[in-house]
C-alpha cells in the first residue's frame, strides 16, 4: 500500500540510514524532490492511488472475478430495461493539482470506481476523508447545492449543469442559493440488506454508474471469507453468499425515494437526486419482476446513471 509521501524516494519506514542532523541528506533529497513540480505530479497520483493500482482497470481484479460472486440486480437485469443517456464525463481537468474530495465511507473505492469509467483520468485524485471536514457538514453543503440545482432545472440530469453556476451565487427572495458544485456530491446514504441487521453507508457520488455502485455494494455485503492475497495481484474469491443460479441473483437493489416509495434502482437517470436510502432486497419479495438470465455484458457495467 502506498501512502502519500511514502512513495517518494522510498524514505518511508527506513530510519536506519537517517542521521540526527536535520540537514541530513535524506531530508534534503526529499525537499528537493518535493519542490519540483514533476514530482508533485507524482504526488498527485500517489494520493489518488489510495485504493492501489492507479489508473483504470487495475486494482483488485474486480472485473475478472465478477462472475464468481453474488450479484445484485438492478433495473437493467429485468425485462423492460430503460436505456440511459450517456452521462458525460464531467471531470474538471482544470482543477488545481490539489485533491478533489471523494469522501467514501472508509474505503478507497472512489479511486477504483472512478478509474473504471472507461479509463478516464481519476476525477482530480479523490482522496478518502480529505479535506478534513465533518461528514455532516459536507453533506449539508452538498445538499444545499443540490437543492438549489434541482429547483433550477428539473428534469435535466445533473451533469448537464453548466459550469457557470460553479461560483455564482444566485439570490432572490425564494430561491435557495448555494455555490454550485459540478460533481453534485450527494453524500452518504444508508444501505441495508435483508437478513443483515447492521447497515452500511455508501457515497453515491463516488460512483458514476450503476455498475460500480453495485460492485461496491457487493464488496460490502458479499464479502469473501477466505484469506486474500493482499499483496496485490489477482485474488481467488469464494463468496460465502454466492447465489448464482443461472446467472441471476437472489438479491435486488432498491431505493427509497422522496415520497417514501421503494423503487427499483436503474430505471431513472435522476435517481441520485431522489434517493434517500438503499436496500438490497430478496428477489422473492419483489413482485412481478422476474430476474432474467443475462450474460453479464461488460459494457452494461459501464452504463451511466
Amino acid at each position, binding site marked *: *500500500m502506498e501512502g*502519500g509521501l511514502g512513495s517518494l524516494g522510498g524514505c518511508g*519506514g527506513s*530510519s536506519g540510514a537517517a542521521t540526527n542532523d536535520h540537514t541530513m541528506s535524506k531530508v534534503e533529497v526529499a525537499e528537493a524532490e*518535493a519542490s519540483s513540480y514533476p514530482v508533485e505530479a507524482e504526488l498527485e497520483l500517489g494520493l489518488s492511488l489510495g485504493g492501489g493500482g492507479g489508473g483504470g482497470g487495475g486494482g483488485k481484479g474486480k472485473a475478472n472475478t465478477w462472475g464468481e460472486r453474488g450479484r445484485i440486480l438492478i433495473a437493467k437485469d429485468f425485462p423492460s430495461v430503460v436505456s440511459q443517456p450517456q452521462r458525460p464525463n464531467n471531470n474538471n481537468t482544470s482543477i*488545481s493539482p490539489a485533491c478533489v474530495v471523494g469522501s*467514501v465511507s472508509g474505503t478507497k473505492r472512489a479511486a477504483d470506481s472512478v478509474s473504471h469509467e472507461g479509463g478516464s483520468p481519476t476525477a482530480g485524485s479523490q482522496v478518502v476523508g480529505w479535506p478534513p471536514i465533518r461528514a455532516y457538514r459536507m453533506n449539508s453543503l452538498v445538499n444545499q447545492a443540490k437543492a438549489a440545482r434541482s429547483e433550477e432545472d428539473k428534469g435535466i440530469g445533473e451533469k448537464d449543469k453548466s459550469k457557470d453556476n460553479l461560483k455564482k451565487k444566485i439570490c432572490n*427572495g425564494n430561491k435557495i442559493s448555494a455555490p454550485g458544485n459540478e460533481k453534485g456530491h450527494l453524500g452518504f446514504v444508508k444501505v441495508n440488506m435483508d437478513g443483515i441487521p447492521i447497515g452500511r453507508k455508501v457515497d453515491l457520488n463516488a460512483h458514476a454508474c450503476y455498475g460500480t455502485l453495485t460492485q461496491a455494494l457487493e464488496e460490502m455485503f458479499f464479502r469473501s471469507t477466505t484469506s*486474500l492475497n*493482499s499483496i496485490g495481484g489477482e485474488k481467488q474469491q469464494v463468496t460465502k453468499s454466492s447465489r448464482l443460479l443461472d446467472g441471476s441473483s437472489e438479491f435486488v437493489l432498491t431505493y427509497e425515494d422522496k415520497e417514501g416509495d421503494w423503487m427499483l434502482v436503474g430505471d431513472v437517470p435522476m435517481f441520485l437526486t431522489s434517493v434517500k436510502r438503499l436496500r438490497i432486497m430478496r428477489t422473492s419479495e419483489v413482485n412481478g419482476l422476474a430476474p432474467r438470465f443475462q450474460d453479464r455484458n461488460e459494457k452494461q457495467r459501464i452504463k451511466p446513471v
Partner: protein
Amino acid sequence: MNYFPDEVLEHIFDFVTSQRDRNSVSQVCKPWYKIESSSRPKVFVGNCYAISPQRVIERFPGLKSITLKGKPHFADFNLVPHDWGGFVYPWIEAFARKSVGLEELKLKRMIISDECLELISRSFPNFKSLVLVSCDGFTTDGLAAIASNCRFLRELDLQENDVEDHRGHWLSCFPDTCTSLVSLNFACLKGEVNLAALERLIARSPNLRSLRLNHAVPLDVLQSILIRAPHLVDLGVGSYVNDPDSETYNKLVMAIRNCMSVKSLSGFLEVAPPCLSAFHLICPNLTSLNLSYAPGIHGTELIKLIRHCRKLQRLWILDCIGDGGLEVVASTCKDLQEIRVFPSDPYIGNAAVTEAGLVALSSGCPKLHSILYFCQQMTNAALITVAKNCPNFTRFRLCILDPTKPDAETNQPFDEGFGAIVHSCKGLRRLSMAGLLTDQVFLYIGMHAKQLEMLSIAFAGNTDKGMQYLLNGCKKLRKLEIRDCPFGNAALLMDVGKYETMRSLWMSSCEVTLEACKSLAKKMPRLNVEIINENDQMDVSADDRQKVEKMFLYRTLAGRRKDAPEFVWTL
C-alpha cells in the same frame, strides 16, 4: 486536614469542578480519594472503551452527569467504518440496573438507538439534559420517547447528528405539563416538524434561553416564536427565506427588536440575504455567530453583518467572506477569541481565503487563541508573522486544501512556519498542520510544544524520525492521529510505554506492519490494539509483513471489547 469531618471536605470539594482538578484531589491521600470519588457528580470518559460502566459506577456512586466519547476523531472524515463501535446501550443499561440517579448525558461520536433513548426516558426520573454530538443510530421516535417521559427535561441539544426522520410528531409528545425547557436544539433534523406543537411548546416554556430550529420552520413561525420567547440568549434560525417587503418580514423585524438578549446567533440554513438586515439590530450584542451552514450569504452581505458585531468573541463562517472580509473582521471584532473558516466549496479546491486573511486576523485580534482555517495557500512568512502576533494560541488548526502544497512564495515546506508557531505559542494544546512538511517540523514540535495534547498529521514527514521526535518530546500528548505518513515500525515501537500515558493513537495508510502491531499488543496488555480492515478479511494467518491499513490503539482497563465487529481485529 485529618481533623476535618468528611462533610466539610466534601463541601470544599464541591467547589472543585473541573475533572482534572478533581482527579488531582483524589490523588492526595486515601481519605481524599474516598470522599472525592463518592461525591463526584460529573464524570468525563474520553474513550468509552477505556473503562467499563460497572467500574465507573463503583467508583462514582454519586454520579449524576456523564460525558462519553466513542469513535476516534477521524471517524468524522469517514475514515472509520460506520459500525466500528461506540455503542452507548451497555452504559445506560448498567446505570439503569444500578439505579444511578442520572440527570445529564452528553455523548460524542457514539451510536445510540431508539431503544436506548426509551430506556433513558424510563429509567431516570430526574433526567434533565441530553446532548448528542455527531451521533447516530436513532430516529425521531427515540426523541419522542424522551419528550414524552422526561418530566423535568431542561435540555435537548442535538448537534450535527445523523437522525432518521420519521416526520416529527415527536414535538407533540412533550406533555402540556412540560414547562421546564431551557434549551432546545433540533437544527440537524432533516424532516418536517409540527409547527403548531412547536409554538405551543415555546409558549409554555418561560425558561427557554436557547433555541435552534431546523430548516422546516418558516419565517412567519419564527416571528411568532420570537414574540413568545423574548428572553432567548441563543437563537438558531432555520429557514430564512422571505420577501423583504412583505408584512411577515416587517413583523419579524419588530419581533427581533424585542429579542435584545440574544447573544448567540446561528443557522440560516436557507437564506435570502436581503432579509439579513433585520438582524443588524441585534448584531451589536452578539458574542457568538455561526454562519458556517449558510452558503447562500454573499461575502458582501457577510461583511455588512460583521461590521455591526463589535462584541464578537466566537465566529464560524465560510471562506466566501474572503481575505477582505477577514480584514473587516480583524478591524471590527477586537474581542475575538475563536474563529473557524470553513471552505464553502471543498471539492474544487478553491478556497477563497489565503495567508493574507490569517495574518490580518492575527494582527487585528489580540485575544485570538483558537483557530480553524481552511485555505487555498499559505506561506512560512505568514505563519511566522502570525506566531509573533499571537503567542496565545491554544488551538491552531490549519488546513490547506491541497495537502502537500508547499509555501506559495518559496516552494519550501512549512517546517519553519509551524516551528515558529510552536515556539511562540507556549500554551498550545491542540495542533493540526497542513501542506508540505518534513521530519524537521516534528523536531521543532518535539522541542517546543510542551503543552501539546492533541496532534493531527496528514501527508507529512519523511522517516520514522519524525514520529520519534514527537513521542520523545511531547510529554503531555494525549491524542495522536496520523494518516498517510511514512512512519513505520521503528517509530511505533520506540517507546511502547508512552501509549499508556495517552488516550489513543490512530495510524492509517502509514508504514506500520502487522508484525509490529502484534508485538506492541503483546508487550502492552493494557492497550487495545485494533486493526480495522474493512475491505479484506484479516486472516489470522495473514502475512505479518503486510502493512496495516488502519490501526487504532488506546489504553484501557476494560480489556478487549466484546462488541467489535468482524472487520475489527483486536490483537
